[in-house]
């Protein structure tokens, strides 16, 4: 087959393929809705599938709002088939359906407009049955794999009073595993409920009837927010438990290792619990009461206590105890008329996991407005204690203050500020502007990024190293008499050469040769490590060290010694001759210092 024919055949097949696909898709377009089950108990869930055959919607279709039902989109699944030349494709959108209460529900027929095609699904019926708490007899029989109990510490509660309800999940001893535990319904109308959490390290085992159950306690923080007869629950939950497999086939020895158990979905429910929520009494209610319910103590501090008019004073008030700390607020202090006050900042430190016990700290900045202020008036805080049904007022004693007048630069009086905060109201504003510009600060690079500053830090380091080296050298010299003598003699010779030249210039022959002889003795004594007085011309030939010295040096030394000896008898020499001797000596000592001692 030629290449042209082959290409033509492939093109024809491709066209046929798309035609078949298109015609198959158009011919089979349909839309169906289905539920994987039409009845389930409250707390369980069903799957709703919306299937489109032969068409491809752009997006998942929206679902109608149905009171009591909730839909959660899971995702799509699609399929495509090509059988005997017939193609079919479908896409299914899946939703999880959960119910908020029991009853009969109808999911109405839905319409979809896809590329001009009007598609509709049939309505669906769904029945959600109520779940009841098991009876005492059922519990005691040991037939219940798991059950739920709700315990509330009070049957009467004051509005605003916090309490911790306790949900107890009982699991029979043969339950191998528990998973997917979920509270499906927790009616707490009239209460504000916090986050339900397991009480750590409080699991226990109890005997119920003739079976042992593991109790898993869950705490449910609740605060009454409405008065009257209130009902907590029934709480419902669902979970998956794993029970030992009922399949007893096979070797019992291997079964104990490979028994994976059987999963079972359980639905749990508690009995409802009735609570009478009482209003807070009107009688004896303090004027500054702001709604705190609980049992509290108060501690307050203020500082600084010596200030100038307008200076800020920080007042720190700590309210500690048990109760709804979230709702505790600091009451306005009417006695603080002479102070400008600012909204307090708060910090809460809980000592329990529910926020019902701990300390709430208020930090408030106030500033005295005149120098007549001599104290921070007493601070009061009122709360209602549900334990004794009484209001209590805590009072912190007045704090003495020393307030000085603002002096020569009084705080500026601002018209706008005055308007905003009349004298008879608690002022709530920023502190006023500053009158003095102060010192202008150059907008420079920070010191740590300035090379000069960084380089300056090397100075003490270098100074320290210099001192360290000096100390080492000094110590070395102190511990080495030979070295010390070497340096002393070197200095002596340096000075001596100058003196020799001076004597030569003055033609003082006797002094010249006396000094020359002494210098020769000192230099040779140092080199040979023997006393200077013991040095004579003879050492040049006798001492082992000098035998290693160059012959010219030894000759020069001999000549110098001989000149010294001759000077005692010979007549006075001329200045030029003395000078040449001094130079010769200088050269000889320089060479001698090179000889290894």
């Amino acid at each position, binding site marked *: 087959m030629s290449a042209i024919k082959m290409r033509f055949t492939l093109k024809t097949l491709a066209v046929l393929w798309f035609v078949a696909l298109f015609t198959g898709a158009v011919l089979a377009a349909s839309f169906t809705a289905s539920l994987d089950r039409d009845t389930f108990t409250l707390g369980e869930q069903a799957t709703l599938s919306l299937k489109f055959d032969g068409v491809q919607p752009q997006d998942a279709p929206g679902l109608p709002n149905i009171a009591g039902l909730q839909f959660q989109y899971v995702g799509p699944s699609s399929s495509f088939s090509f059988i005997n030349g017939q193609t079919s494709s479908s896409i299914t959108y899946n939703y999880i359906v959960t119910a908020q209460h029991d009853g009969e529900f109808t999911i109405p027929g839905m319409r979809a407009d896809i590329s001009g095609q009007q598609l509709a699904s049939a309505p669906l019926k769904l029945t959600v049955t109520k779940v009841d708490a098991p009876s005492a007899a059922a519990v005691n029989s040991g037939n219940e794999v798991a059950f739920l109990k709700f315990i509330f510490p009070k049957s009467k509660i004051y509005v605003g009073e916090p309490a911790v309800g306790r949900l107890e999940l009982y699991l029979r001893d043969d339950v191998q595993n528990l998973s997917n535990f979920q509270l499906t319904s927790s009616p707490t109308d009239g209460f504000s409920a916090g986050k339900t959490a397991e009480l750590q390290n409080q699991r226990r085992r109890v005997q119920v009837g003739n079976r042992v159950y593991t109790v898993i306690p869950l705490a449910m923080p609740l605060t009454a927010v409405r008065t009257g007869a209130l009902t907590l629950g029934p709480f419902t939950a669902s979970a998956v438990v794993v029970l030992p497999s009922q399949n007893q086939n096979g070797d019992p020895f291997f079964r104990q290792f490979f028994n994976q158990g059987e999963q079972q979905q359980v639905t749990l429910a508690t009995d409802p619990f009735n609570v009478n929520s009482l209003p807070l009494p009107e009688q004896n209610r303090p004027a500054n009461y702001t709604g705190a319910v609980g049992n509290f103590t108060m501690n307050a501090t203020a500082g600084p206590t010596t200030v100038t008019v307008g*200076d*800020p004073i920080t007042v720190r008030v700590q309210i500690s105890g048990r109760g709804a700390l979230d709702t505790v607020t600091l009451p306005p202090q009417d006695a603080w008329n002479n102070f400008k006050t*600012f*909204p307090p*900042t708060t910090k809460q430190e809980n000592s329990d996991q529910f926020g019902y016990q701990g300390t709430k700290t208020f930090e408030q*900045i106030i*500033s005295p407005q005149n120098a007549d202020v001599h104290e921070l008036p007493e601070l009061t805080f009122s709360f209602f204690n549900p334990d004794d049904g009484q209001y209590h007022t805590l009072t912190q004693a007045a704090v003495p203050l020393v307030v000085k007048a603002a002096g020569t630069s009084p705080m*500026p*009086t*601002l*018209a*706008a500020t005055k308007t905003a905060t009349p004298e008879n109201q608690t002022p709530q*504003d*920023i*502190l*006023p*502007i*500053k*009158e*003095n*510009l*102060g*010192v*202008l*600060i*150059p*907008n420079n690079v*920070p*010191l*740590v*990024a300035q090379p000069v*500053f960084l380089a*300056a*830090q090397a100075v*003490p*380091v270098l*100074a*320290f190293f210099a*001192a*360290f080296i*000096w*100390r080492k050298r000094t110590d070395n010299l102190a511990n080495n008499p030979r070295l010390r003598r070497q340096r002393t003699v070197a200095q002596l010779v340096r000075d001596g050469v100058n003196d020799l030249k001076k004597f030569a210039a003055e033609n003082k022959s006797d002094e010249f040769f006396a000094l020359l002889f002494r210098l020769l003795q000192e230099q040779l004594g140092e080199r040979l490590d023997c006393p200077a007085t013991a040095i004579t011309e003879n050492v040049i030939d006798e001492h082992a060290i000098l035998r290693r010295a160059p012959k010219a040096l030894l000759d020069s030394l001999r000549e110098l010694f001989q000149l010294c000896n001759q000077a005692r008898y010979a007549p006075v020499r001329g200045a030029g001759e003395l000078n040449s001797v001094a130079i010769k000596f200088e050269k000889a000592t320089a060479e001698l210092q090179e000889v290894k001692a």
Partner: protein
Amino acid sequence: MLVAANVFAAEVSADFSAANKLYAEGKFADAASAYEKILQSGAQSPALLFNDANAEFKAGHLGKAIAAYRRAAQLSPRDAELRANLAFVRNQMAGATVRERFWQNWLGTLTLNEGAMLTAVLFWLTAALLIARQIRPALVPKLKSVTRLLVVLTFFSGAVLAVQAANHFLSATAVVTADNVTARSGPFDDAQTVFTVRDGAELSVLDQRDGWVQVANGTGKSGWLPAKLVEVLPGA
């Protein structure tokens, strides 16, 4: 040069008084502009920034006020009035924001330059003592305890300075200066919206690019804000 500096200081002082007058007359926006003009001339003082912040706050610009208070706090961190006003203005801000942690507040009680000077003085004193010990070994027993104390203080101060410098140079805060600013998933106008922030929100800066600033809002979300709608300050 000294004469020129004196003339400049006198001019700044006169402008400052004029701006204060505008503020006292209740012309807060004008006062804020006047303070801003002085700042743009290169002059800078804690009082100038404080007053600018007050004027911005009174003019209803929460973010600009917070930014100015924070700049003032970097120059004069122990000013009680400044801290009181900053706390007050911050309380007016609603929505997500990132505040300094305790250790950052603690480090902030000294300016970076004060920290550098303190560390340098301790370092020089320590070096002087160590040099004295080399020059006069007889002093070693007498200087032993004070040398140890100074060495410990120098290392501590140096470590604090290092953290302070790292915080200053490696971290930055963006203060939002407009209301309901949209943070986007990328540095583009048509990028997806991630969250919105309110005027005065203080956010951690993660990156800066092409007129956009990437910020984190402290709740695990990050997004890009137009740079012209934020003021970026050094330090977290």
